[in-house]
């Protein structure tokens, strides 16, 4: 995974600093170019089939309804040359786990046909303890020729606190048990002692057990299909294609970088926890290589919010993929030859043992992706040639709710509600971000149907809808996000409800080139309301303001509470950032947004300076006056830092 440590130059690939070779021409060697395209596409299709197998075998709504999973294919050395189109960071972490297994099992137990390994150890390669990596070697006539891997986010793997966030942990010893790589299947036979040891530690053995089978099934399908391919086309051809995929991606990626301006772009993102932890990145692009320097990021916390170095490297690549790799095969191994990631051990994005990382994928590594993405978006904004591919910041802080209790059927249950993955996308250069457009980490993000959630868990949604004014204002605005309101249903209490997010005090989805950022993540409960009386009377209050009660506001970014039948819970996820000064937005676009209910009349006047009358028409004269007034306010309220001698750069 990239070069480790600080200061080492990025490993250079075949094309160096000169003119990049045509994509993959040298790499595919003797393979016919048409056959190369067919087989490289086939390898992607194998990933798709592995992922769908995993999804169908898993009973977990996390995999089945929210696609919080992914798969990857690796070469014999563990270099990942093809990833599935789900949560990218899951696959980007597989390579480090395979490389560890190759060392760890070389002399003791060995690696043989039909073996499957698993690990949730973040200091080996897992993104955090909940993202269990299952990997399997692919053999052909007794020779190791590659690896498949799969990951599904788990809802509970033990530890003092139910679910993901180990509240109160001061090191990794207060978090979920670690499984360094272990052999779960040996020569095609599941080792029941190992499986039982794994499942003994979770509060949800049935669900976690099924997910384990699902991940093994995903690996089995991947391995079998690669073997089919070798049987049909021969090992030498498939090997050449595997090597060619990464080389082609490297060549295309270096060519893409060479088209972009040289420079340095920086961002500071923030993680709210017991203190505020800045994730600072300086991205320097020179010629056809890219350096991400995170060394100025905050020192690590004791536990919970950090991520390990493999997760930070994966998080960086997870941002590069959607911003720069829209027309090439997603081969992390190819990309990483042109990318260097510098980190400082002991920091929030490069945890030093034994710091805890239980929430890493929504804190340290999530912010590493967002911060890298902001830099990449500003680099794209600096060239007319690639303006079509510009995207402002996507949902810059993911909210998740873990819940545990007795469900409507009287059974113990645990769940992760992932509706906030609907997020909101960043503005494009000439169009708005998509409302509830998802998030950067997954090209296939979806959220569960309300009916599926209500069937599985004791909840009744009162509403789930686009929340106006949550996308960042700009000439092109960021996508708005969702607001959700629900009560518990058919149970006396939801005893354990853990709400956690970053971006509760500040908006993570920053705007670009004069645009505003998105909203912040928000969660509140109105206690002891009249909601039951309203429902009994046939009314359905869809907004928390429509019920009477006492509003409880949670000041911390992580909060543990319970919910009673009269309590109404509301959360607002995070939208996307905008692009360019909103005073330049075409008033007709603002008018259309007001008519659609995605921008309010008040926000239209405040942020865009557009006055929309009660009949829905734009008052042009009033708009001109309002915009002049805003510009005048800008002039009167601001000063030049260089003149005033303000501190800073």
């Amino acid at each position: 995974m990239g070069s480790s440590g600080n200061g080492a130059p990025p490993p250079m690939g075949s094309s160096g600093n000169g003119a990049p070779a045509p994509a993959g021409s040298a790499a595919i060697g003797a393979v016919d170019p048409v056959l190369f395209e067919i087989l490289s596409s086939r390898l992607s299709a194998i990933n798709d089939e592995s992922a769908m197998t995993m999804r169908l075998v898993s009973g977990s709504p996390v995999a089945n309804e929210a696609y919080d999973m992914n798969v990857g294919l690796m070469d014999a050395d563990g270099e990942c040359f093809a990833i599935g189109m789900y949560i990218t960071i899951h696959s980007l972490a597989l390579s480090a786990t395979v490389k560890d297994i190759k060392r760890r099992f070389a002399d003791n137990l060995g690696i043989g046909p039909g073996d499957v390994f698993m690990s949730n150890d973040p200091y080996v390669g897992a993104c955090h303890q909940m993202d269990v990596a299952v990997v399997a070697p692919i053999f052909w006539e007794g020779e190791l020729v590659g690896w498949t891997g799969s990951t599904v986010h788990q809802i509970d793997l033990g530890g003092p606190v139910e679910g993901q966030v180990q509240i109160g942990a001061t090191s990794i010893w207060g978090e979920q048990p670690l499984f360094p790589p272990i052999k779960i299947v040996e020569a095609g036979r599941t080792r029941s002692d190992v499986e039982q040891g794994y499942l003994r530690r979770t509060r949800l053995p049935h669900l976690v057990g099924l997910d384990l089978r699902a991940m093994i099934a995903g690996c089995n399908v991947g391995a079998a299909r690669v073997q089919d391919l070798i049987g049909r086309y021969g090992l030498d051809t498939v090997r050449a294609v595997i090597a060619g995929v990464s080389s082609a991606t490297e060549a295309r990626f270096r060519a893409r970088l060479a088209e972009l301006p040289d420079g340095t772009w920086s961002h500071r993102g923030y993680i709210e926890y017991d203190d505020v932890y800045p994730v600072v990145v300086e991205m320097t692009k020179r010629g056809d290589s890219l350096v991400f320097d995170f060394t100025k990021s905050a020192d690590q916390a004791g536990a919970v919010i950090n991520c390990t170095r493999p997760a930070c490297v994966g998080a960086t690549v997870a941002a590069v993929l959607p911003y720069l790799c829209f027309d090439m095969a997603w081969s992390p191994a190819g990309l990483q030859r042109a990318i260097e990631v510098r980190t400082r051990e002991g920091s929030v994005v490069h945890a030093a043992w034994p710091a805890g990382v239980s929430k890493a994928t929504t804190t340290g590594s999530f912010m590493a992706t967002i911060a890298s993405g902001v830099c990449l978006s500003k680099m794209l904004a600096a060239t007319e040639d690639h303006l079509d591919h510009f995207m402002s910041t996507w949902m810059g802080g993911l909210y998740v709710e873990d819940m545990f209790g007795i469900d409507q059927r009287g059974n113990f249950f645990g769940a992760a509600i992932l509706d906030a993955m609907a997020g909101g996308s960043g503005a494009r250069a000439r169009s708005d971000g998509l409302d509830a457009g998802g998030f950067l980490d997954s090209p296939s993000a979806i959220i569960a149907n309300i009916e599926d959630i209500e069937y599985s868990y004791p909840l009744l949604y009162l509403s789930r809808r686009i929340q106006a004014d949550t996308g960042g204002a700009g000439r092109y605005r960021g996508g708005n996000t969702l607001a959700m309101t629900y009560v518990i249903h058919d149970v006396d209490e939801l005893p354990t409800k853990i709400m956690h997010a970053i971006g509760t005090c500040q908006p993570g989805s920053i705007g670009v080139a004069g645009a505003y950022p998105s909203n912040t993540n928000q969660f509140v409960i109105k206690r002891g309301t009249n909601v039951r009386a309203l429902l009994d009377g046939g009314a359905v209050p869809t907004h928390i303001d429509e019920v009477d009660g006492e509003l409880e506001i949670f000041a911390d970014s992580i909060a543990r509470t319970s919910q009673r039948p009269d309590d109404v819970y509301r959360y607002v996820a995070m939208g996307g950032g905008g692009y360019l000064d909103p005073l330049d937005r075409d008033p007709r676009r603002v008018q259309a947004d007001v008519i659609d209910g995605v921008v309010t009349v008040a926000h239209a006047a405040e942020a865009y300076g557009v006055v929309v009358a009660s009949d829905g028409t734009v008052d042009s004269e009033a708009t001109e006056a309002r915009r002049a007034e805003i510009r005048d306010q800008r002039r009167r309220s601001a000063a030049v830092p260089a003149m005033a001698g303000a501190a800073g750069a």
Partner: protein
Amino acid sequence: MARLNEQIEIAGGGAGARHVCRCGRDLGPVTENYKRHALMREGPVQNAGPWVDPHSIGGDRFVCRQFFCPGCLTQLDVEIAQRGEPLLWDARIRMPDEPEGAEGPEGANGPEGASKPEGSEG
């Protein structure tokens, strides 16, 4: 023509290249943060939008810094920062004919960029 983005172009070349607003207003040399040459307004983070920390759970820890062109008053950037943090130098184009070592002040964004603001609780 080189540019930081659609609103800030770069005029000239080599060591003498300068940031210029779309209106023609000079915004300083490329070896300096353009924000230092813009108008800046710093206010509560809630200035960033109607749904930004509406219950003020973050107290006054975070601020919203808005930067405007002194010429045409176009908003050039909206920066979210902890109170007291240095300005973020968010975009720095390197000109093709720029001499080596014209980077400007080393460490423009830290390590103080990662430090806690004064008066914050440990």
